[in-house]
């Protein structure tokens, strides 16, 4: 596809960092699927982000832990790219007391403020209004943080999208609205639920820059994110990025994912962005086969450690039901 922005080539170090994030996400996904098949960790629900790894992997090259991320149920790729520790992530998925949320939130509500993972919501559209609030705090404190709100193509039709982009533009909030357009919403194809050909074009309704890019193209995504982050940090206001991508594993575990036309999905799988980037890194001489294999081994170990950490962690005590309900416990 053609990108709306002029693509700048990221330095090799950035491409390597993007690959490391993307590979970590991909390997983590495989491990989650494995754990769910074996069932031994007791992971109860999972929305796979396979196919969408490059988007947050490239975005986060421009963010630090101080920047805020608000994501959705399908958000583990965003969370990992943003730097959430895998041990606590796995423990949360496994419902353990050592999880990011003590096992109380679970996959749809993973939270880890230390890495800037502020909110994960299970409500379509719920991430955008909250992102504005985080950005409003940054604007008032002039702390130069950037907030990114992730959401899907289907979410671009719900009221919260409209209200949030309107407010962010009026107030020039340092926020990026990142629509990960995987061409489907649960089982409804993009064009059937969305009355515009390009979500990015909706930015015009808010006098806001809107760019559509191939989210699976590391350079294009990296460049679009770079511009949007720079704009936000400079206090020039919000940007809407529509990152085109593809959902490889269905809506959630067990989804037959039958909604694709002849060949659509096959073609997308053909273009699996993670191995593609790996090839490119070697072809362009940014990394050797050996170096990448070593990196991947490191990632495998990281994940095995996280799995074991979760496995060996205690389950939350039932008394936790009464904790974290109100400040200082229920009155």
């Amino acid at each position, binding site marked *: 596809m053609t990108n709306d922005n002029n693509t700048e080539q990221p330095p090799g170090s950035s491409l390597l960092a993007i690959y490391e994030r993307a590979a970590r996400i991909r390997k983590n996904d495989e491990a989650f699927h494995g754990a769910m098949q074996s069932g031994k960790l007791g992971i109860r629900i999972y929305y796979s982000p396979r196919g969408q790894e490059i988007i947050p992997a490239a975005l986060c090259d421009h963010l630090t832990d101080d920047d805020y991320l608000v994501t959705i149920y399908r958000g583990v790729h965003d969370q990992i790219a943003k730097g959430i520790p895998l041990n606590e992530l796995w423990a949360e998925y496994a419902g353990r007391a050592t999880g990011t949320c003590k096992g109380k939130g679970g996959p*749809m*509500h993973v939270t880890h403020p230390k890495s800037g993972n502020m909110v994960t919501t*299970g409500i379509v559209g719920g991430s955008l209004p909250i992102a504005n609030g985080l950005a409003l705090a940054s604007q008032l404190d002039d702390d130069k943080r950037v907030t990114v709100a992730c959401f899907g193509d289907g979410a671009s039709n719900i009221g919260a999208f409209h209200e949030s982009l309107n407010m962010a533009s009026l107030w020039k909030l340092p926020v990026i609205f990142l629509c990960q357009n995987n061409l489907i919403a649960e089982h409804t194809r993009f064009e059937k639920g969305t009355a515009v050909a390009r979500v990015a074009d909706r930015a015009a309704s808010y006098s806001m820059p809107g760019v559509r890019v191939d989210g699976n193209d590391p350079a294009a995504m990296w460049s679009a994110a770079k511009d949007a982050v720079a704009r936000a940090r400079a206090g020039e206001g919000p940007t809407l990025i529509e990152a085109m991508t593809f959902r490889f594993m269905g809506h959630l575990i067990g989804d037959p994912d039958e909604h694709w036309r002849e060949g659509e999905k096959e073609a997308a799988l053909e273009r699996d962005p993670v191995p593609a980037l790996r090839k490119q890194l070697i072809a362009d001489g940014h990394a050797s086969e050996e170096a990448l294999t070593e990196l991947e081994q490191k990632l495998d170990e990281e994940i095995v450690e996280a799995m074991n950490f979760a496995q060996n962690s205690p389950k*939350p005590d*039932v008394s936790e039901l009464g904790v974290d309900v109100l400040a200082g416990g229920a009155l």
Partner: protein
Amino acid sequence: MTAQVNFVQAINQAMHDAMADDPNVLILGEDIADEEGGGVVKVTTGLSSSFGADRVRSTPITEEAIIGAAVGAALVGKRPIAEIMLMNFLTVGMDQIVNHAAKLRFMSGGQTHVPMTIRTMTGAGGGAGGQHTDMVEAWFAHVAGMKVVAPSSPAEAYGLLRSCIEDDDPCLFVENMPTYWTNGDAPERGTRIPLGKAAVVSPGTDVTIISYARTMMESGAAVKALSEEGVSAELIDLRTIAPFDLETILESVSKTKRAVVVHEAVTPFGVGAEISARITEELFSELAAPVQRVGSTFNAVPYAQALEEAHLPSMQRVVDAVRRTLS
């Protein structure tokens, strides 16, 4: 034994029969048409193929627009069923339900009314966490002009849903998802179960247990366990939460002198509070013990399985509540 069907089949059958009987019945909801898989858990499978994707419309993810469209169509003679995938998502369409659907009959002085049914799934037990399984039926029961219905068996689901679709008021029809695939006796095609009437499921003499929806299971199990201790509990299935069948409740409690209300919703400010208050207002002098309530613990639905189970009402908690009325 009679043929068995689960909730999914019974609800699908009810919608199928209603659409076959009345061309004004239509369904709006996310992913409901067969092109979108016939519903995320297949409750609407086959309906768009039978009645057309015009009458069984997959919608964008826009609950306010879905419910508003149902309200508008209902104003001019349609009998729309708006499927709101999960009860927590009603929060996105609250304005259309509360400020419009429930009130237009009164505010128009009876010139218009809204014969719409909102079907919604919910119920904890599947590990979905805090935003997907709430029971907030009490909110809608607190709104004049609404009817709130919650079946506890496939046959009830069929008969009550048929009545909701044919009812001239906005009805909220609450379906419990974790028990969706539980079998029960198949409904007689075409049966209607009247709204506003409860059912005495098992007769008893020592205490009345009043429940609805999924917790009829825990309550039924409690009745069995109690009978083994020689306690005879009468079990009432409320079926309609608003307006609820006070008469049947009072008849039972004036006999048993004791009552326990059981529901999945959190206890404080829940449906049980209203029922407890009404029973006490009417039968104060006859009651042998204060009405007891059993509901989920007062917190968001937790993810971890052990916590989720402890959060929900259990057979044991129902039995304990009954014991409190007997001691």
